[in-house]
């Protein structure tokens, strides 16, 4: 874990606490960026690297929970909430919307660091998945339209003969398309291809039973 690989965002209205948190994270060798309000955080340019957000519930402009709701739809780092007086409804709401942890001030070092690490790990995984999916999408985009049709029928579980009949082509032609598709998608096996199709959310349109009839 190097300092360059991640960043911790701090949003708190108390300058003393911001200062203390930056110092603490620095002592742990972490990079941190602090903001006095939600608005400042939203407006700031954020580097593209694994990150986490330490968010105070009580903020001068908008509530921390409201900020979470605003950014939850988009691409955002995992959130660790801190609050002067946590109440159960707030914490439940925060966790339901994907918060990593909900800490009550004053928090101890270990708790905070564990939450931060968990959040950063979560972000890294998220980023890795996102990268893999992007690679798959690139491969899928390289397929010809006919190959995409063949892919959909094959991952639906149709036999070559059924798929050929479905597309109105010969079984031999279908086998050529199938081989090309597997190569382009860099799939080692049919199962591999099926997993990829699932991640790409390619719909299963046919069933092998019922004689290839559309269901």
């Amino acid at each position: 874990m190097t300092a360059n690989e991640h960043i911790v965002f701090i949003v708190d209205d108390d300058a003393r606490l911001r200062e203390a948190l930056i110092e603490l994270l620095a002592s742990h060798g972490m990079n941190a960026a602090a903001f006095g309000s939600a608005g400042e955080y939203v407006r700031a340019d954020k580097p593209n690297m694994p990150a986490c957000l330490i968010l105070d519930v009580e903020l001068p402009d908008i509530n921390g929970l409201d900020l979470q709701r605003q950014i939850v739809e988009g691409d955002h780092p995992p959130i660790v909430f801190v609050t002067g007086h946590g109440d159960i409804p707030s914490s439940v709401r925060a966790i339901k919307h994907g918060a990593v942890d909900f800490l009550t001030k004053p928090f101890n070092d270990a708790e905070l660091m564990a939450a931060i690490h968990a959040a950063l790990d979560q972000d890294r995984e998220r980023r890795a998945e996102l990268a893999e999916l992007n690679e798959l999408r690139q491969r899928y985009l390289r397929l010809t339209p006919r190959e995409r049709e063949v892919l959909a029928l094959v991952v639906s579980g149709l036999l070559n003969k059924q798929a050929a009949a479905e597309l109105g082509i010969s079984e031999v032609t279908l086998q050529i398309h199938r081989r090309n598709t597997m190569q382009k998608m860099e799939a080692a096996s049919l199962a591999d291809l099926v997993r990829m199709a699932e991640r790409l959310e390619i719909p299963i349109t046919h069933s092998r039973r019922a004689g290839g009839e559309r269901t």
Partner: protein
Amino acid sequence: MWTQTLFQYRLALAIGASAAGVAVSWMTATPIGLVAPVAAIFLFARGGAVAVLFSVLAIALAGLVIATSFNLGGFRDLTLTWAGFFVVALCIGAIVAVSATPGADDHQTAIRPTAQKVAPSYPVTGPTPEEKAAPRQSPIVSINAQDDEITAELMLAASFWGGSPFHLRYWRNEPNGNCRWTEVRTEAFHEQNGIRQWASVSADLHGQRSEVPLPAKTASSPPVDDDAVIAAKFVEQLLGNAWAFDRSGRPTYLTPFAQAFVSVTLDEFQAAADEGLSFFRRTSHPDEYDHIDAAWRHSLRTGDPFYIERRIRRASGIFDWNRTAIVPTRDGHGRVTGWYGASMDLDAYRVAELALRERERELSQLVDMVPSHLWRLTPDGEPVFYSKRMVEYLGQDVADADERCIGRLEALIEAIHPDDAAKFRSVLDRCLLTGKAFSMQYRLRRADGIYRWMSSRAEPMRDQDGRIVHWYGLCHDIDDQMQAEAAIRQRERSLRQLVETLPALIYCATPGGEPIYRSQTLQDFLGLGLEETDETDETGRPRLAGTLDAIIHPDDLLTVKERYGQSLSTGEPYALRHRLRRFDGEYRWVETRAAAMRDPDGVIAQWNGVCLEIEDQVRAEEELRQVHDRLARASQAASLAELSASIAHEVNQPLAAIVANSHACHRWLSAEPANVERAKITAERIIRDANSAADVVSRIRALFKRSTESRSATSYSDIIAEARQVMADEFVRHSIHLDIEVANDLPLVKLDRVQIQQVLINLIRNGIEATDSNSGEKVLRIRVLRDEDVIRTEICDRGRGIACPERIFEPFYTTKDRGMGMGLAICRSIVESHGGRLWAQSNEPIGTTFSFTLPIEAKAV
């Protein structure tokens, strides 16, 4: 006179005969001589004495006859002799008694001659009108002369039994011993059952006697064989007054009385007749003469009897009413041979009749003039009389019904309003049947067809036997009265309806508070009327107390009684809210208001009150109050929660910083190699933040403890400067310009530094927030100046201002979205605990100025 003499002579004769008889009896020793005294005794015995004598003689005779028959004692000869004596004595007694009876006749017949004798002696000329008006007296009282008295009695008796008028003049004894010449006239009033009444007039004629000419005129050679004269003499015997005429109407006989009556002698009459003048010329009233003369001549011509009532001029020149009757005498061939007749004095009768007529006229005038309808019914209910006014009103008279061939009663009922007719008939029928007085009000049709209300009453008149003779009725027009009453009733009804329909409970009470009226709504509400609470209830309490006890909620009863009593005694209006018992037993809140109604003198005549049901209102108010209380409690609780949250925030913030810094410090020192520089920086921050937290804690403690121990003489200017520093960040952040002006000569003041700082910061923060909401010039002014013995601080913002400058100091009052409303309340209590004052006022045109004072010599509180 001669009667007296005769009497004495007869007595002497009887005594002499008796003495002779006794002497003979003694000498002959026989009882025969005793016949003479017996006869003498019979001669003088009268009435019962005669019967006793006869009885004694008869008994003695009977005894002697028995003795003789049975020869008792052996003296048969003696007893026989005595029996013979008694027989003779009885015979003589019978003869004497029979002969004495004509003697009584002599007395009776003596009446007439006496009366005849009196009449000429005291000529009756009749009274003057003035005499007639004289007071009446008994005719036989105090008559002067003894013989006059006897005469008067005889005349009165004859008059009484015969019914003829009685006229007498006599000397009347006065109480002072004088005698006065007086005339009395007595007249019998003839009624159905015979003589009922006698009317007497007594007149003082003193001084008139000498004027009366002595009549002493007698008929001159009356032809005694004339039938008319004989008849006249008979009449004269009956009436004491008669005359006779020959066939031609020439008077031939005139009783002395008649001549004296008119003071004209027969000769004078005859002389007049010879001159061709009528007999009545001299005596009749000039106005009547022609009529009388014509009638008399008619009678003379035809032989018809002549009956006439006329006025006769009496000797005194006064005219008296008389009835004159003259009838003819006829011979065997029916030819008139002469005339005889008499005049009877009718004057008193006529006067009485006139008076009666006058009275009747007055009565009928009264009947007609009375402004009411009078009517009379037969016992069967048949109308027989309507008064003139009634006839005019109805437009029909009693008899009009006969022409229309309907019953008279039917005709009357026909005029009664159809709605009342049946009742009228039934009431009248019942009255006719029972004889009870009739009384009814009905509408009667006037002649013009308009019905008017009448009040009618009728009562029966009964005869001696109690039978109803007539019904007399009175009918009075009460239409105007009825209309007025109807109008009053209508007005009263509408007023009552107004009162009854008003959606309020209305009551009235006497000046003493006793209820006298309750509107229907109130009765319905209470479920009881006035009558159900009598003057005193069972326990004997007065009605007011009983009523109040019954209808007022026990908890309110004392207050109601007290206030009501107070109003009753002072006359002040009364208004009170209390609970009133409804008919179903539930107590409802009402507001009762009552005021006194006074008469023109200002005396309380009545209390009028109204009860408005305010149950819903009271309940709503109660609910509102409860909601308010709950809200207040909730907001207090919420505020406390917020307060604690706020405190926690204030304390946690530095604590969190301290903890974080401590960990950082620890990390720096634990690092290889240890980063001492960074550790130092973090340690300083720890110290700083810890102090900050300690300050907060002490401030909070001061806030709640309100201790004065920490007060010390402090420079107020320093406090201002500190506050300014604390808030500096805020000013910058909100871009607000602070205009601060502090006086130079401020002395040291003894105060709690933390508390006053808290006040300042609070007020400044309020000012910043207020100014921040303003889009205009963002300036906050703070002025501190010395005002005599206080330091005054003014914080003046340009915010939107505040609505109620006093309310903002109340606890939990806030105008902010996220305030707990404690700030200003705490500030005020802090300032006041320092002996100062905190207030707010609105600025012109915008903004608010908060000012507080601090005394230079702070008081120890």
